[in-house]
């Protein structure tokens, strides 16, 4: 009897242990959504590769948050008794993470493609603005600040382009905004100034036509200076004979107003004096009758109106002279040509030879196309 009890005492716990093991092993328990979690990870990883973190920040961050929540939910379910675990929420969150990550991927792809096009267009537009600034206004009088803005803008534009090429669209876009602030107002100012300058075109044309007609009538030489094209045209008997490059005063846009404004006057003049040798510092010079009656009347009217300072004085000593060919507008308002060209001009000119200075011989459309 004692032996039987001993067997029972040994076999019972052993049986119970085996039964328990069997129960533990074979009783169905909730399975964690490992596959769904792997899918979510893969979708998030793909979205990251498509730069969704930058170009679809909200959706990508939501996807990551869903995944993190799923992970923490999974961990907290693991703390529970294995038979009371429920992974439905984990699964739902994993699926939501996948959905959001896929949406973020598509959104990022679209945004990237759109940004790529937008930035490319923006770069092209600003490049065109810069090219126009250089083509139309490289010799246009502008303040030091404006010139500095153009320089800064050009360097920033190059930086933005490099970033765009590397696919760093956000940085490129930020830089382009700064470029816009530097280049566009400068261009708009110069453009408006140019348009306003060309309002006098009909008068210039009339002066030029009259000068050419005078040359034909007198069968003599006439000189026309085109400030915008920086050209000196020599006519004989109404026919164009010579064309030279001209260099002007630093502030050549607009008519000369006062002494020292470094502007080249506009009007119909004639040669009043010829200088050569020691009488000029500029090789040879042909002085014109600036200010003429019209200039004096204009100056006096401006003084009366108070549009000029009281200390202002009318300018003078405007000449066509040598020492030119420097490739810049450097005179105090005179017209400079090379010494060799000056020799020719000096030879053909006499006291009384007409010299007409115009803003431009061609209209605004030409100036804008240039």
């Amino acid at each position, binding site marked *: 009897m004692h032996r039987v009890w001993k067997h029972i005492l040994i076999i019972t716990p052993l049986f119970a242990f085996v039964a328990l093991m069997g129960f533990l092993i074979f009783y169905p328990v909730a399975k964690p959504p490992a596959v769904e979690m792997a899918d979510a990870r893969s979708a998030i990883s793909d979205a990251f*590769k498509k730069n969704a973190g930058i170009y679809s920040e909200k959706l990508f961050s939501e996807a990551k948050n869903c*995944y993190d929540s799923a992970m923490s939910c*999974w961990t907290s379910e693991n703390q529970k008794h294995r038979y009371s675990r429920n992974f439905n929420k984990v699964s739902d969150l994993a699926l939501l993470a996948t959905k959001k990550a896929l949406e973020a991927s598509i959104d990022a792809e679209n945004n990237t493609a759109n940004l790529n096009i937008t930035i490319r267009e923006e770069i092209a537009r600003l490049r065109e603005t810069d090219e126009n600034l250089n083509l139309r206004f490289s010799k246009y009088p502008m303040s030091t600040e404006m010139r500095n803005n153009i*320089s800064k803008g050009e360097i*920033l534009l190059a*930086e933005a382009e490099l970033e765009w090429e590397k696919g760093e669209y956000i940085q490129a876009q930020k830089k382009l905004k700064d470029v816009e602030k530097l280049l566009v107002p400068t261009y708009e100012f110069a453009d408006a100034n140019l348009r306003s300058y060309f309002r006098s075109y009909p008068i210039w044309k009339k002066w030029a036509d009259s000068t050419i007609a005078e040359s034909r009538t007198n069968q003599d030489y006439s000189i026309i200076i085109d400030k915008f094209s920086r050209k000196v045209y020599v006519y004989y008997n109404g026919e164009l004979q010579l064309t030279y490059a001209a260099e002007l005063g630093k502030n050549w846009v607009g008519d000369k107003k006062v002494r020292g404004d470094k502007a080249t006057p506009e009007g119909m003049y004639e040669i009043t004096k010829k200088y050569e040798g020691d009488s000029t510092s500029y090789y040879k010079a042909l002085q014109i009758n600036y200010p003429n009656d019209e200039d004096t009347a204009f100056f006096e009217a401006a003084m009366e109106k108070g549009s000029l300072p009281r200390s202002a004085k009318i300018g003078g000593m405007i000449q066509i002279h040598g020492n030119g*060919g*420097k*490739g810049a507008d*450097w005179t105090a308002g005179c017209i400079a040509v090379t010494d060799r060209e000056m020799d020719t001009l000096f030879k053909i000119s006499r006291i009384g030879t007409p010299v007409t200075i115009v803003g431009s011989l061609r209209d605004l459309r030409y100036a804008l196309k240039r």
Partner: protein
Amino acid sequence: MKNRILLGLAAIAMVAVLASCGKKPQVEIDATNAAIAAAQTAEANVYLPGEFAALQDSMNAINAKIAEVDGKLFKNYKEVVADLASVKTLAETVVTNVAVKKDEVKKEAEGLLSNIKAVVEENAKLLPKLPRGKEGAAVIEQIKGDLTAVDATVAEAQSLFDKGTYMDALNKIKAATDKAASLNAEIKEVLTKAKIRF
């Protein structure tokens, strides 16, 4: 005797069951996380973003695997430990690769910076040679503006370089290089036109 054998077997079975409940490899997890953090500190996300993202993906997969094992009755972290070791090694390799890449970018930036500084220096030397007086004033004024902009960009690039942000420095230098070179050409053209030797 028979009873003792049975008792012994039962005890072994119990020990085996208990022994199979492995411990979470916290030391390995911490070491791997530290290796990934070190890669981030080394700016792997800047210089080797693809490799860094792969590291993070692998760690996320391991975390999921750990959660899976955590939920099991008989926990076996052997595979997890092996994965952790491999990701840790990968993170260490990334740190080495980042150092190499960073050095490459640093050298490129250094070379370009030294080139552009030479051009800037030459421009500064040529500037006083430009025609003096009213003839050159307008040209000098315009060129000075351009030179100031280039100088400012070079200074910014140098500051970024000194801070160790070589990628950003490289971008700035590349952008200013063309401008500095075109200015150099422009100055030389003015000097040639004015028949001034340089």
